[in-house]
């Protein structure tokens, strides 16, 4: 029998010497360019980090490629970031160019440090999830192809954090991202009452619906859904597999903007709905990529130094956000969920 409950390997065994020696002793860092930073420890020791983009959905051969770079330049160590980038670290200045060259040879972008658009936090999509209203890896590929230069160059005066989720479960930090793309269902679940009774527990299926849209089928076995009350959340489907929501026509993408999690300057903020529906248009989702790019460009033109997306919008007001971007404000934007009244404006302070 295999040992259970051993937990992950102790991270201390995974640290390169340069880090072990200066652990907890770092003093400051400098960002040398979009892909490279240098940390200086109290004793004066220095550490160079090269950050490299990754598609996250990778083959084991990709991992082996990374290992080769690490073995060649980094004493056999590397790490991944919280945004699925790869970081190669070395105390040797002279190794930096070698790492960069090796990464480039593999076709990997070097960047994402400082005021860049870093890698996109994303999810499974059509590659692995039953809940998905869209694909995640493909969307990310399409978006990052389009925004590539924002990863490798300094074009911004603040970070823009993007997230993609393939359904409104939002596996990731979509709800608090500068820009977020979310797959949405817009049709109620397709109830398969030939299967419901056998694969689902009816009472808990009924209870699972936050809007009370599900009730017993009055004309036979299983359940029925009241279309009017369904907000396409998919919670019923999680509980009852015989009620899938996927719909080739209905499924699409919503874009949320202005969230953040850092406390720098402004407290963490939720992302808010900017565009409620764009068509699901694989493999390149041009409507999504162009909308994101457009928002970014408007943001760049009008924002101040250091200002995150949400800080900018807070300063200029949502009315100006919609005017400047030309995005239409519709009744979809008006909250009607449980805490909706909190979002209604009780102020004479607004702009035309």
């Amino acid at each position: 029998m295999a040992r259970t409950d051993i937990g992950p390997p102790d991270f201390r065994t995974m640290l390169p010497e340069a880090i072990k020696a200066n652990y907890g002793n770092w003093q400051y860092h400098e960002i040398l360019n979009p892909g490279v930073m240098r940390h200086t420890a109290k004793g004066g020791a220095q550490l160079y980090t090269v950050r490299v983009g990754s598609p996250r959905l990778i083959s084991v051969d990709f991992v082996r490629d990374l290992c080769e770079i690490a073995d060649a330049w980094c004493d056999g160590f590397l790490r991944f970031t919280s945004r699925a980038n790869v970081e190669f670290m070395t105390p040797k200045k002279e190794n930096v160019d070698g790492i960069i060259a090796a990464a480039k040879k593999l076709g990997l972008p070097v960047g994402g440090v400082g005021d860049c658009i870093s890698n996109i936090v994303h999810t499974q999509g059509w590659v692995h999830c039953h809940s998905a209203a869209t694909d995640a890896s493909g969307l990310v590929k399409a978006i990052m192809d389009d925004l590539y230069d924002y990863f490798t160059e300094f074009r911004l005066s603040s970070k823009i954090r993007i997230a993609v989720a393939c359904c409104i479960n939002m596996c990731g930090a979509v709800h608090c991202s500068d820009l977020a793309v979310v797959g949405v269902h817009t049709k109620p679940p397709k109830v398969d009452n030939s299967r419901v009774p056998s694969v689902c527990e009816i009472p808990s299926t009924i209870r699972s619906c936050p809007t009370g849209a599900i009730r017993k089928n009055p004309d036979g076995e299983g359940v029925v859904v009241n279309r009017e009350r369904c907000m396409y959340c998919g919670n019923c489907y999680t509980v009852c597999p015989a009620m899938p929501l996927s719909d080739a026509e209905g499924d699409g993408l919503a874009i949320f903007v202005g969230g953040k999690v850092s406390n720098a300057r402004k407290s963490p903020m939720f992302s808010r709905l900017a565009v409620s529906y764009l068509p699901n248009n694989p493999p390149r989702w041009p409507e999504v990529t162009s909308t994101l790019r457009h928002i970014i460009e408007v943001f760049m033109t009008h924002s101040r130094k250091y200002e995150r997306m949400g800080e900018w919008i807070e300063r200029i007001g949502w009315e100006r956000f919609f005017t400047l971007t030309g995005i239409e404000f519709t009744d979809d934007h008006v909250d009607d969920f449980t805490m909706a009244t909190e979002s209604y404006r009780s102020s004479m302070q607004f702009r035309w």
Partner: protein
Amino acid sequence: MSSTPLLDDLENGRWPSFVKEIKRAAKNNPAAKDLLGIVELSYKEKVTHWKHGGIVGVVGYGGGVIGRYSDVPKMFPAAEQFHTVRVNHPSGWFYDTKSLRKICDIWEKQGSGITNFHGSTGDIILLGTRTENVQPCFNELSDAGFDLGGSGSCLRTPAGCIGPARCEWACFDTLDFVNDVTQSFQDELHRPRWPYKFKIKASGCPNDCVAAIARSDFTLIGTWRDSLVIDNEEIKKYVAKGVNMREDIVDRCPGSSLSYDEKTQTLTVRPDECVRCMHCINKLTKAIKIGSKRGATILIGGKAPILRGAFLSWVLVPFMELKPPYTEIKDLLAKIWDWWDEHGRNRERIAETIARTGLKEFLKAMGIKPVPQMVKHPRSNPFVFYNR
């Protein structure tokens, strides 16, 4: 013509391509090959071809594997079963290449050879294996020193930022803490028995580089109690380099706690007013340092929108020193889980349970004294449940 024209398009472009990666794996793995077919079909039909779950697991554990079956088994038999194995990452996502290569070898043998480094909770996601391979895969991982991460209604794999390993702002040892808490609660991690999932994330400072406040039920964010420290010699150098101290630093301070004297080129802080947002420290890395009485704020309840709307974690303990063996925080966790176990409804995250019962009740159960730091503002309604 290629059988995957839509996906092929995603091999173009400058950003590295996941399609290339699936194809690399597909070269000597039929499951990976059929995955490509399934995904192409989704791209064509614009619907997912994965079916809802199914319980798959390893002996002795209740989670760690996500069962997954395709709804087109006839077309793509090799990927009919395509279960995910979640592997707990080492704190900070640091690896030696030996371990990484070992994982690659195991996964090439036991699965599709396709993986995520990492899933957004933080696990290594080994994507796509058959039921009969799950246990052998686990056995080999275990022999290699790795263990499964969480899935289901249990403690999920804790994660933390790089912290003291490379960051000058880490107010506590995020890596050690994550490792310790993961090891201490292996049972809670592997054997789901709660109302729903429970996530822990730790960021070393208010920059929150793992988005802990948004993505974890139990959130630790480093901070300090004394004053940040300004080195005015370095300030002068920044000014010489063209930094506009007034506009870019002083005016952007949310605490209105900085003053800058143009003549002497000195920056001063009123420590009582500083809200430790990190802005000035972030931008003047050489000149401004965090304080030295360090610890963490504990926040509770962060989660995604299902079902009552998303929550960002709420301040629970404004300041706690965080030193091994982390007894205070472990006691708190145990108390929280007990209470949640008792009061939480099925599929109710801790934030929802607290929202339903009221923070006041929760604090009482935790034995925590309410302080103003927990609220944006006191209640505006007069509906106090007086206990007189």
